């Protein structure tokens, strides 16, 4: 139910940001992409045809738009994008009335996306149509109006609609990933859009800056900074860019994660003599202490329903993942395999917790359900793979990898398959955090 309302709001926003000129849509959810036997959707994406009636377009904008859409669909991890070279001669320019679906099924496409571009005084109009090749049906037909040059935004809108039509969920196209780039003794939080474009340095504190955490409403980014020589927690408004210090107690002040309603921020503080987890009301700055243990308690992560909190504690001798109720009661241990399990991240669909664990002298990403059952190892290569963070759709996980002095930010499907590298370099990149769906 919540999801439906969310999708509705997203659709409403989509309507606000562009004008829908004509629509035929069947919002039909007919393939369960989370089923174990799920095969990627084979889809053919044609270059958008330029319509010559408006202002003469530069020749390749239809190709650029189609390329953006292909890259986005590929990043979602659930599509097999057919190579343009496999298309039969002349099929791309067939008019919608005379599409021969057999020309597409013969090359293995189950779905076909086609479109036309027109350029008018008000900008760009992209008409796109998605077909079910095997049934010979139109799944949606929609026209988007955009300012000329905003092809990436147009591509995100089309790709989101394709995903809604096939899965009922718009996916993660309108998201960003915040992460930390370390240079020498300094570090700063950067953001990267989902398609790995637009790298931005957000903090510029000339200090140590760590642990970026988005508020679920997309209003704030919280983080830890040593700007004043010691670790303190800041809240940055993403709208105004203003930063506010919210925790600067004696000792450690470490940023944890936001509550689902974005009103509270979990913290690790050592002001009461050892590292404990607290909940901070970001309006009133009222603090509530949640853990009482002589051990290290750190890295709290709220469950999507707000009822539970996962965290790391070494109260049993080594760092392990624990879960407690949101008021700090009923603490139970979740991980038992291995002697170093940290960085818990709760799936937005609930149920599963991703974390990093030490195995064969390497850190790898795992996921486990909140009762501690059904443990799955997700990464296996010879790098250290750390800091998992779920996408808003719950279908993907971003993480960072270090192999020697080489560093990567990658995403994978929630089952560990289909790893795609977003950014690679010699500068050290760590602690990726996936944003909510942004407007």
């Amino acid at each position, binding site marked *: 139910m919540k999801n439906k309302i969310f999708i509705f709001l997203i659709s409403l926003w989509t309507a606000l940001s562009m004008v829908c000129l004509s629509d035929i849509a069947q919002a039909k959810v007919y393939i369960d992409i989370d089923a174990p036997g799920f095969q990627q959707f084979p889809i053919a994406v044609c270059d958008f045809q330029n319509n010559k009636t408006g202002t003469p377009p530069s020749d390749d904008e239809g190709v650029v738009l189609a390329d953006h859409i292909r890259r986005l669909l590929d990043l979602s991890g659930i599509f097999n994008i057919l190579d343009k070279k496999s298309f039969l001669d002349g099929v791309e320019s067939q008019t919608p009335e005379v599409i021969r679906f057999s020309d597409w099924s013969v090359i293995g496409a189950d779905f076909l996306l086609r479109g036309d571009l027109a350029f008018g005084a008000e900008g760009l109009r992209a008409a796109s149509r998605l077909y079910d090749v095997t049934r010979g049906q139109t799944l949606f037909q929609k026209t988007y109006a955009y300012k000329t040059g905003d092809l990436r935004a147009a591509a995100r809108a089309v790709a989101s609609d394709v995903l809604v039509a096939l899965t009922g969920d718009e996916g993660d196209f309108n998201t960003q990933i915040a992460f930390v780039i370390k240079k020498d003794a300094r570090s700063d939080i950067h953001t990267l859009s989902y398609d790995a474009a637009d790298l931005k340095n*957000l903090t510029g504190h000339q200090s140590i800056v760590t642990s970026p955490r988005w508020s679920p409403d997309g209003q704030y980014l919280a983080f830890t900074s040593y700007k004043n020589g010691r670790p303190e927690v800041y809240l940055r408004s993403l709208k105004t860019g203003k930063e506010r210090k919210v925790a600067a107690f004696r000792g450690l002040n470490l940023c944890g994660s936001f509550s689902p309603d974005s009103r509270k921020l979990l913290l690790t503080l050592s002001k009461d003599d050892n590292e404990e987890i607290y909940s901070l009301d970001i309006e009133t700055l009222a603090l509530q202490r949640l853990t009482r243990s002589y051990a290290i308690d750190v890295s709290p992560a709220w469950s999507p329903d707000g009822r539970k909190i996962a965290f790391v504690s070494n109260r049993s001798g080594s760092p392990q993942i624990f879960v407690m109720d949101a008021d700090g009661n009923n603490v139970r241990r979740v991980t038992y395999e291995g002697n170093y399990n940290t960085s818990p991240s709760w799936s937005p669909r609930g149920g599963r917790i991703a974390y990093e664990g030490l195995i064969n002298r390497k850190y790898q990403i795992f996921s486990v359900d909140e009762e501690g059952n059904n443990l799955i190892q997700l990464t296996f290569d010879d790098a250290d793979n750390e800091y998992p963070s779920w996408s808003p759709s719950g279908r993907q996980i971003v993480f960072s990898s270090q192999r020697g002095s080489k560093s990567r930010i990658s995403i994978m499907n929630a089952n560990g398959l289909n790893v795609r590298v977003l950014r690679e370099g010699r500068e050290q990149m760590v602690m990726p955090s996936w944003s909510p769906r942004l407007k």
Partner: protein
Amino acid sequence: MKKSLTLIGLLLVFAFGLMILGGCAEKQAVVKDEPAQEQKVAPTQAPAAPVADDEAARRAKEQADREAALRAQAARDAAAKRNAAALADLNIQNIYFDFDKSSIRPDAREILKANAEIFTKNSAAKITVEGHCDERGTAEYNMALGERRAQEVKQYLVNLGVDAGRIETVSYGEERPADQGHTEEAWAQNRRAQFLLK
């Protein structure tokens, strides 16, 4: 239920879309790239003096004040330098920890005893104990572990008679390695407590 809700949603969306037909709303940039401005204290400017004589006298006085301030600053700098050099000559040694441990190792006890003696002799100086970790594991856990290491060292020094009020702790987690390497040797050098006297 699911289907009808979605349909209603879509219908509403389309109705809305038609309503605003022709008015293409602007796309919103989510992350405004305005860096948060630090408050900067502007250099105070003396108001212009109305009378020329006063102006000359004021300038002379200002010049004299400035020179005096510079001399005082130079003297302070020199003193601080002498003090820093003296403290650096004290040979305060780091101590090292085992992986994922904050307990004081037997080999560290002698070093802490020697350091405590130095701290007691230089009773005017403030002591900062920095806790550090190697790069393995999670940055947040390592910040907590670094704090633990610094606290353990502080407690050990207090037990040896150093005034607790003089000792501050700070954890740098894995963020300030002494050795930039990615080997066992580098890691052993980086799991440390470091001392700063001021």
